[in-house]
């Protein structure tokens, strides 16, 4: 470790020009973590249940798009009516994306209604285990059906690279994918900020986060709103899964990887904080890239584990969270 740090210090002049590129690609991957952490935070805020199976639902979102894509393209080719003409202007990828988000919304709604709601009053242990078991079952089905070969996600647009700036040797490149990811995540963050702080729906969710019993006393249909929030959280997660599928390949095992990075972002930002999740995701993305190049490639994998452990040991409430420990 010490020799590595010394070698970094001696090679400082050679390493420094890489830094802007690392930060930019760290932000791009961090945006993905941020979106997943955002969807988990939304689930957590409404129902105070941490969904340990969320990574597998994210993975399911990517697979749903993969499965729906050929169906949608086929139907558009067959239709020759006015509807078909209208549909020919809409790219099939977009149709498949919207359909898969709807499918995952329904999944989240049904999962909460059928599996989580009946045991919501029970111990935390069975809630967490239920979420894990659902994720495990989803992964098992996907692996049995599609796990045998490596599948490539259909691409909506060709891969392109842009030079962001080039100034005396300090240059950075960004792919079109990464730009669109960043744009989508920022838009989603803005939408969720507006929904959660400005609308009636958002105020109801705030009330349920504070006390479910109290909000049901003032006439809120807690079960219905919890179902809705699970649907919204799952479809946001599915959007993250589609991006993940575009950035990497489709893989049934991506769930745990995703889950741990989402947790790391949530822990760093503080549980239950929307902007905390996004900032935490960005910080983890940048840290992964910078530590991976400057110290050792081993850090790419373990940054998020170390962040989780250190944050919970040193400052369990994270950067912007409320409280996380029990005082006796």
């Amino acid at each position, binding site marked *: 470790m010490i020799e590595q740090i010394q070698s970094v210090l001696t090679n400082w002049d050679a390493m420094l020009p890489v830094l802007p590129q690392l930060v930019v690609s760290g932000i791009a991957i961090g945006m993905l973590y941020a979106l997943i952490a955002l969807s988990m935070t939304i689930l957590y805020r409404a129902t105070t249940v*941490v969904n*340990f199976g969320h990574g597998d639902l994210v993975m399911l979102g990517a697979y749903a798009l993969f499965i729906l894509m050929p169906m949608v393209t086929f139907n558009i080719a067959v239709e020759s009516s006015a509807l078909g003409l209208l549909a020919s202007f809409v790219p099939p990828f977009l149709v498949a994306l919207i359909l898969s988000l709807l499918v995952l919304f329904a999944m989240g709604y049904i999962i909460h209604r059928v*599996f989580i709601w*009946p*045991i919501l009053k*029970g*111990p*935390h*242990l*069975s809630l*967490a*285990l*239920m979420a*894990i*078991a*659902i*994720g*495990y*079952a*989803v*992964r*098992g*089905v996907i*692996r*049995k059906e599609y*796990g045998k070969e490596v599948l490539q996600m259909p691409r909506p647009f060709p891969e392109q690279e842009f030079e962001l700036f080039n100034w005396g040797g300090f240059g950075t490149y960004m792919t079109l994918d990464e730009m669109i990811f960043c744009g989508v995540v920022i838009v989603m963050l803005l939408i969720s900020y507006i929904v959660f702080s400005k609308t009636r729906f958002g105020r109801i969710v705030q009330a349920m986060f504070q006390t479910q019993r109290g909000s049901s006393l003032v006439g809120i249909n807690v079960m219905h709103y919890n179902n809705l929030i699970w649907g919204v959280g799952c479809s946001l997660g599915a959007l993250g899964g589609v991006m993940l599928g575009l950035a990497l390949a489709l893989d049934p095992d991506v769930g*745990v990887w995703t889950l*741990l990075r989402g*947790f*790391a972002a949530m*822990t760093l930002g503080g*549980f239950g904080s929307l902007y905390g999740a996004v900032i935490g995701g960005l910080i983890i993305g940048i840290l992964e890239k910078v530590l991976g190049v400057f110290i050792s490639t*081993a850090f790419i*994998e*373990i940054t*998020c*584990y*170390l962040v*989780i*452990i250190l944050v*919970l*040991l040193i400052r*369990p409430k994270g950067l912007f969270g409320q409280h*996380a*420990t*029990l*005082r*006796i």
Partner: protein
Amino acid sequence: MLALALPLVLNQYLQYVVNLMLVYILVSVGFNIVVGNLGQLAFSNVAFFGIGAYASGILTTQLGMPWWLTVVPAGFCGALAGCAASIPALRGVRLFYLAIMTLAFGELMRWLYIRTPGLTGGSMGLTVPEPAVFGWMLTNEYQKFYVFLFIVVVVVIATSRLLESRIGRAFLAIKNDENAAAAMGIPTGQYFLLAFALSGFVVGIGGSMYAALVGHLSPEDFDLIQVILHFAIIMVGGLGSLIGSILGSILITATPEVIRHFEWLVGSEEWIFGVAIIVVILFLPRGLSSLLAKVNPIFKDRYYRD
């Protein structure tokens, strides 16, 4: 007594499956101490299991120790890991925070197995020599069975004694209400440490048996799928029940072998385990052991209350 005659009727492969069941009995009994009796959500079990297995493997390959001498050191390595895993709990980290943290701990350990090829063989895995007991080599599964059965019986009886004592009652008090337990004068921090160390010890011994049984350890054996297997065992069997752990280990270890006989079910272990956990949580929260207790009160857990 009937179990002693098992090698007479089984072939080598089925005997291997039975030995695997014995390993999982220890693993789930140890896991149940933290999850069932102390009531904490911790994923660190797979880390204890891996540490026990690798400790046994490293001691036999690097130091040339006979296997039987490594069983207890492997247990102590697991107990040490248990103490480390309980540090966040001592700091007041509870519920899913503890779960996330122990999840990260388990993954970190798996990363460590891959990244220290000098000791653990890295991602290629570690080949463990034939286990030796008092100078004799255990070359076939039948011999391993008797040694394993002896270890399992001793450890399970010791654990059940411990859980029926003052210590076990303190665990249950902490599970039911930690504040109330502390108010009654139970030093909750010490009991957290004790429960995690005990769990690590039992699971570490299970790990050393696993090393002797399989003969080749690879980091993939200790990933999160393994921890879901452990959860499936204790949930199906019954949380906080020794009989349940034994029953669950037998059932869950036998499932893949049964599945193998049906063409259309090949590769479905994952979703079957997932669905099994869901069904048990929804319809049978106390697991199969509660069904047994209804049939015959002798199976009732005297030291366990909801």
